[in-house]
């Protein structure tokens, strides 16, 4: 095995699905800096553990590593600063026309409630709705049965519906 070939394969894979990886990291960790670090860390892990790839869905394999790297970052954060409040990036202001202001407002609302979901529900909703992964692919990323994916997705959506309905801006 030539290690350079492995690394270049992983590098191509990571670059091809970099937005998916970063988006997942950004939603799990809440800010750009931590998300970028987690994805970079995931890339190093992937390059070193390419031997665990046994064929199959390479994107799911890569996203599984990204997810593990994010969860490790979350755990480290909890250990180091059990009470600290994580600084979340300010939402980007896309423009000032009335229509786009309304859209931005709705986006912020969804973002706020989605970010408040417990991680185990948030990740399945992100992978399904934003990354458009199938149940089977999500099951591969999370290393859980498809039935678990379905029940977490259902509970995540129910949580989200409830919190949106209860929020004063949501009405």
């Amino acid at each position, binding site marked *: 095995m030539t290690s350079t070939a492995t690394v270049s394969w992983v590098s191509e894979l990571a670059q091809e699905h970099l937005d998916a990886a970063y988006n997942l990291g950004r939603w799990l960790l809440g800010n750009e800096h931590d998300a970028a670090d987690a994805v970079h860390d995931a890339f190093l892990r992937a390059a070193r553990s390419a031997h665990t790839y046994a064929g*199959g869905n390479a994107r799911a394999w890569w996203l599984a590593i990204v997810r593990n790297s994010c969860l490790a970052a979350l755990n480290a954060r909890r250990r180091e600063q059990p009470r600290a409040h994580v600084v979340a990036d300010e939402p980007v202001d896309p423009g000032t026309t009335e229509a786009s202001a309304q859209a931005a407002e709705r986006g912020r609302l969804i973002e706020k409630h989605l970010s408040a979901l417990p991680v185990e529900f948030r990740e399945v909703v992100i992978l399904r709705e934003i990354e458009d992964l*199938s149940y089977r692919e999500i099951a591969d990323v999370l290393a859980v049965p498809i039935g678990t994916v379905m029940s977490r997705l259902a509970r995540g959506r129910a949580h989200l519906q409830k919190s949106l309905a209860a929020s004063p801006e949501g009405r």
Partner: protein
Amino acid sequence: MDCNEAKRLIEPYLDGELDRAEARALEAHVDGCAECQAVLTQLGQLRHAVRTEAPRYTAPASLRERIREARVEQPARRIAPRRVPAWWRLAAACFFAFIAGSVVTLTWHPGAGRDQVVNDLFASHWRALAANSPVDVVSSDRHTVRPWFAGKLPQAPLVRDFAEQGFPLVGGRIDYAGAQRVPVLVYRHDKHLIDVYLLPESTPAVSSAHREGYSLVWGTLDDQPTAIVSDLDGAELARFKALLDAAR
């Protein structure tokens, strides 16, 4: 269909995970049930809101740069692996053989990729056997399976059922054989599962192969190259291949 079952199916329906027959049955129920209709509408709205309004963050250029420029140090020696299934080790070994043997791209190469195609197909078959269900769309009706593929692939494959000859169609899935997404038709014969991989025309034809009690033979379905992978015995597999080759 009662409301309990309908409510259980509403999310898979919106997520595109039901086959056509199930989807039709659910639609029929929802048409006549205001309560389930409300559930469907609300979930549909939520889904639409998340999909259109939640931001998808794109990777900053600096991160892209970091990945492109990254230098990875290889560990000198790996610690002996934990107990892993034999097929997993085999698949990993095959993967490394491929890496060593060719310039890595995400397509199959005729010639250089021959053995790799075989390895990928065995790996895919074993992976499917290890999964909860070897099929994504469960149906013995070819008129259900083909449209399911049509929604997911540029070209839907020809689907034939051989129930009368003792090989009923179980369903289909889309699987990765290497980096290639290919349609797979799944048949059953007694307790044996048979995967039929419909391969791109450019796939190099090679002789049949045997691994750990499983066989792979090459055939055609309506002139498209196929690989048949199963643990059927040789005679039965040959009979199935003949059926497949003759199907139009």
